[in-house]
């Protein structure tokens, strides 16, 4: 018996069959995830019941929403008339009437094209940095921006000539991307000055000369770098640029303005508010915090005692102090330390402090990424004869930043939401600042859920997009195939 079983020859191959019904599709998923045991079944039922009551309670509120009314009272009247005296309902009419304050604060309505244009161009500037030389993604972004600008400027009754000019500029960007996608990075470089000019207005020469200061830095660096090395050359370049910015720029700018008075109507920082303010602070701080954070992280790992001590002090001090303390410092104390009659813009002060604040967090996140790299990577870079900065730029940073993407993005999302804290120094951020202004109006007194839901939804949209982008980036940079 045993002997006959030991030898066996298959004469007919078994064809593959479909798995049994309980092992595929929806049935399998439901069995495995919802009803895999008594405890799981009970939990599923409980969850379904509570979900049902939640929807039952809140659904009428959403469904009874009123979009056309002039006050909260009118809203309630309409709801009561339509659904009975006890019915609840959302009063979206407030958003319809006040949305521009949530978006632009007190920016003069006839100049809305300026923030809208800066917002559109922001994505043109970001595209080459976010998608490198990827032509298709860059074109998709450009098309989206063009459409957004066209529709929003048209809806705001802008001059057709202006719209045409802006569309021609967008066509220029598209042509540039088609010819040389990487050249778009030059626009990224000048975007900060352009956005500052568009948003605050004033003489065109201010931002132009500020950019010239960066050119001074670059020239000094290139001339001195072979003799003094990277650190000394950049320090001297920075000093030279500071001399330019602080001592020479304003007089040269005034002189140029008298010769060629080109500019836009100047606006004050008081007129900024809502998401315009959140974006100005968020975007400038995020883009400045990353490079500063990288330098702090490298500084903390440095062998040079002075640089190491300095980096550790900054990081530990900033992480040890609440952001609100630093914001108060920005609005009150900084003014005492500056020379009398210096007009140091409040938004600029807040941006600087928020930048330093998040740079410290970023530094620690990146230090974690650096620590995760095997020592062999540093040794291989050294053994090939790469100098310190080459090794950091080409070998360690690309890998460390890739590892740190989740941490960096978390920090950035946190920073963006923390821009709402500037309400404590009297800036009209969207959540509390604008909402309380709206509620101060007798028409909208007592409206609670709607503004918070509106602001929360926009914040969620932004943060979720950032998060999705980071997933894309992680996937794109995954080359180790482990």
């Amino acid at each position, binding site marked *: 018996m045993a002997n006959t079983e030991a030898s066996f020859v298959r004469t007919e191959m078994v064809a593959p069959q479909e798995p049994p019904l309980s092992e595929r599709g929806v049935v399998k998923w439901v069995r495995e995830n919802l009803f895999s045991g008594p405890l799981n079944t009970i939990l599923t039922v409980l969850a379904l019941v509570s979900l049902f009551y939640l929807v039952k309670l809140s659904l009428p509120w959403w469904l009874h929403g009123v979009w056309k009314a002039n006050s909260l009272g009118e809203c309630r009247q309409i709801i009561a008339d339509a659904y009975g005296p006890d019915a609840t309902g959302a009063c979206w009419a407030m958003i319809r009437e006040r949305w521009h304050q949530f978006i632009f604060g007190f920016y003069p309505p006839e100049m809305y094209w300026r923030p809208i244009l800066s917002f559109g161009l922001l994505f043109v500037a970001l595209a080459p940095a976010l998608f490198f030389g990827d032509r298709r993604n860059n074109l998709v972004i450009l098309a989206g921006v063009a459409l957004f600008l066209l529709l929003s400027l048209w809806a705001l009754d802008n001059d057709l000539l202006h719209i045409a000019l802006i569309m021609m500029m967008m066509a220029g960007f598209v042509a540039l991307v088609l010819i040389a996608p990487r050249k778009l990075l030059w626009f990224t470089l000048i975007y900060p000055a352009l956005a500052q000019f568009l948003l605050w207005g004033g003489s065109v020469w201010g931002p132009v000369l500020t950019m010239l200061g960066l050119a001074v830095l670059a020239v000094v660096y290139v001339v001195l770098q072979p003799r003094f090395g990277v650190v000394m050359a950049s320090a001297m370049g920075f000093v030279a640029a500071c001399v330019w910015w602080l001592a020479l720029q304003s007089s040269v700018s005034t002189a140029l303005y008298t010769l060629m008075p080109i500019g836009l109507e100047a606006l004050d920082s008081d007129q900024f508010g809502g998401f315009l303010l959140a974006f100005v602070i968020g975007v400038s701080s995020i883009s400045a915090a990353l490079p500063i954070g990288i330098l702090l992280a490298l500084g903390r790992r440095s062998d040079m005692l002075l640089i190491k001590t300095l980096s550790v002090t900054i990081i530990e001090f900033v992480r040890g102090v609440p952001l609100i303390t630093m914001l108060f410092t920005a609005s009150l104390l900084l003014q005492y330390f500056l020379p009398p009659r210096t007009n140091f813009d409040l938004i600029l002060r807040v941006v600087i402090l928020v930048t330093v604040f998040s740079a410290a967090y970023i530094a620690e996140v990146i230090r974690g990424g650096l620590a995760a790299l095997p020592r062999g990577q540093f040794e*291989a870079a050294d053994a090939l004869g790469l100098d310190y900065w080459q090794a950091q730029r080409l070998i360690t940073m690309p890998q460390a930043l890739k590892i740190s993407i989740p941490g960096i993005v978390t920090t950035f999302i946190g920073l963006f939401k923390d821009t709402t804290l500037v309400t404590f120094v009297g800036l009209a951020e969207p959540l509390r600042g604008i909402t309380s202004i709206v509620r101060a109006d007798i028409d909208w007194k007592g409206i609670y859920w709607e503004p918070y839901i509106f602001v929360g939804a926009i914040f969620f949209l932004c943060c979720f997009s950032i998060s999705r982008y980071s997933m894309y980036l992680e996937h794109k940079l995954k080359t*180790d195939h482990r």
Partner: protein
Amino acid sequence: MSEAIARKVDTSHMKISDEVAIQITGMNKWYGAFHVLRDINMTVLKGERIVICGPSGSGKSTLIRCVNRLEEHQQGQIVVDGTELTSDLKNIDKVRSEVGMVFQHFNLFPHLTILENCTLAPIWVRKVPKKEAEETAMHFLSKVKIPEQAHKYPGQLSGGQQQRVAIARSLCMKPRIMLFDEPTSALDPEMIKEVLDTMIQLAEEGMTMICVTHEMGFAQAVANRVIFMDQGQIVEQNAPKEFFNNPQSDRTKLFLSQILGH
């Protein structure tokens, strides 16, 4: 003993010049209070193929890592190709660009393709134009017999292939001296052979090589000198034939009996 090297290598044509490639005199090194390298004196001539062996912890890796200053020595002198290694960063980078190094764990850059791994240093250190660097890289990748993998990432290659890429990466810098730090210790037996074949090929072309390795077959076939280290010092050095057949010190005899005994 590994039998990965089956073929006889004809070493007669491998010329050793009388020019000095590396000169180490009275070198000492400490890790904290631990004296890792003690009074090392060693001269390497151009074209020499030296194998350094010894028990683990004997300081053999540390010694070759001192040659391109991955480790700093505290006493004595190391002169590589006429340049003394001091704390002067310019000298260090100069020596490192002249001396190639192959590591036990390959240390390829995982975020770059094979080709980019090979062209990175020539482009940034030697300032070679990208096109020329790519041609050189393809030449050396063909030489280590993996030109078809040029556009893959290191993670997609086998260990032996990765180590051959690491050798090609070093060769792209056109080094005068190659250091091998246990290049086959992390590899499967099958892959050891392909890496050793590449190293033999290099030796045949007259490269000055210092290899830390446990491959005694390789030492017998290729080396013109074998150095045995123990407790941070050079205990014995000799031509491979003498070294293996007629070891002098008791420590060497014990070591050889242990690694050749099974």
